[in-house]
């Protein structure tokens, strides 16, 4: 029996965590006994300590920072800090779950739930608000947003694991059903089972392994919320703070970036974050993404060459892990030949977690080929 892309009907989330951990450990040429640091977030069944026991780890550093979909980008930064401080030497980060064939994970209810729940807003509404306001302030159009999905679909056609492999046009996006005005169905990411894992270690240990080397050279993290009523502008994300911190630490600028993994829960998420990271000025994201500028081999900034969350995979409704993995593939030269960026030596992986338009975290990682 074949399993449809993006589903794991029989496996339990905890065994998916073990599966991705095993894959990453073996890919690095290590064994489980080498792992002395472990990172996981809110998708881990129960909590961190049952996961550590289930995986049979003996670790001396743990971190369960939970910031929704960008947790794993923050874990990467924190793992590098812990390693630099000597708290661990080989860290494992895992994400896995199955919202498609299992129950949808509940959305975290914050301190303001009593005040917000009555309005019955869905995730789509929160992002629709941002898109609507961006259009109002800057004249951004649905056609421009659609180009982001079009670019993702051009990449997904080469990914055998992508859930949606069909190349779509701007018209296809505009003709798909309206979900939360102005976001159409094709402006929304897929819902998939799945996961991913990372190994982070010291430069010395990394050099002793057989894989091409990728180094984290800059990291930033930030949060944004309504802040008592003073931060209600819906057209920017916490990326305006996490991005500059990461670029400054790395000593590079957005102009130097050859490939970008950008969190794509919705098309508007990508557009706002590209502006926030400084790939173009605030309000000019629509022009920036139009006409295939994000398509590998066609435009100036190839993005999400695995097809991203919009077409390939958005495991457990959390896209941060896959953003790092595809950036690493690009820097290793292991992306699909049809989407591999030539001489890809510098990449950014960026994401948000929580809800744009309500309250969220952001994290930016700058990665270079060594």
């Amino acid at each position, binding site marked *: 029996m074949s399993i449809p892309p993006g589903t794991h009907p029989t496996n339990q989330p905890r065994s998916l965590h073990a599966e991705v951990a095993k894959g990453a450990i073996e890919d690095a040429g290590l064994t489980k006994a080498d792992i002395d640091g472990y990172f996981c977030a809110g998708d881990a069944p129960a909590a961190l300590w049952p996961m550590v026991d289930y995986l049979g780890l003996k670790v001396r550093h743990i971190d369960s920072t939970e910031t929704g979909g960008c947790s794993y980008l923050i874990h990467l930064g924190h793992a590098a800090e812990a390693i630099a401080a000597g708290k661990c030497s080989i860290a494992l980060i895992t994400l896995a779950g199955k919202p498609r064939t299992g129950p949808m994970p509940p959305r975290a209810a914050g301190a303001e739930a*009593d005040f917000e*729940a009555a309005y019955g807003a869905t995730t*789509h509404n929160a992002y629709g608000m941002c898109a*609507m306001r961006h259009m109002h302030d800057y004249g951004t159009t649905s056609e421009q947003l659609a180009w982001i999905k079009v670019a993702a679909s051009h990449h997904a056609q080469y990914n055998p694991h992508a859930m949606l492999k069909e190349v779509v046009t701007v018209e296809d996006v505009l003709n798909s*059903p309206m979900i939360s005005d102005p976001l159409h169905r094709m402006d929304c990411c897929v*819902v998939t089972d799945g996961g991913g894992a990372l190994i982070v270690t010291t430069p010395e240990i990394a050099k002793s392994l057989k894989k091409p080397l990728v180094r984290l050279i800059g990291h930033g993290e930030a949060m944004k919320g309504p802040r*008592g*009523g003073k931060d*209600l502008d819906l057209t920017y994300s916490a990326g305006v703070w996490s991005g500059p911190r990461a670029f400054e630490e790395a000593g590079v600028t957005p102009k130097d970036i050859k490939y970008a993994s950008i969190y794509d829960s919705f098309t508007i998420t990508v557009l706002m974050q590209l502006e926030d990271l400084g790939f173009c000025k605030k309000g000019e994201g629509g022009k920036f993404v139009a006409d295939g500028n994000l398509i590998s081999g066609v435009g100036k900034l190839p993005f999400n060459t695995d097809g991203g969350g919009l077409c390939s995979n958005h495991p457990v409704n959390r896209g941060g892990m896959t953003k790092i993995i595809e950036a690493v593939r690009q820097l290793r030269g292991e992306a699909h030949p049809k989407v591999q960026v030539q001489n890809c030596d510098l990449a950014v992986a960026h994401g948000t977690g929580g809800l744009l338009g309500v309250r969220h975290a952001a994290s930016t990682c700058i990665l270079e080929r060594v």
Partner: protein
Amino acid sequence: MAEAKKYPTPVTNPETAQFWEAAKAGKFMIKRCTACGEPHYFPRSICPFCFSDKTVWEESFGRGHDLHLQPDAQIRRPGRMRSPTSR
């Protein structure tokens, strides 16, 4: 005819009880900090700006402007909690 939407009943606590009591009487209350003078919403017992605990209730003067309009095209069906991209 569509089912009437049911809204969750807010769970009050000492920090927010007066907001909901006033709401029953048709009043929209915000908090103001008497130390820094700044108003804030949602209501907090400690000012989110200067962290003073000298916050008091005041009735909003009742005017504002919309930051956005958000019509929801998704038809909600009971029990359907998945994303519209689910099929």
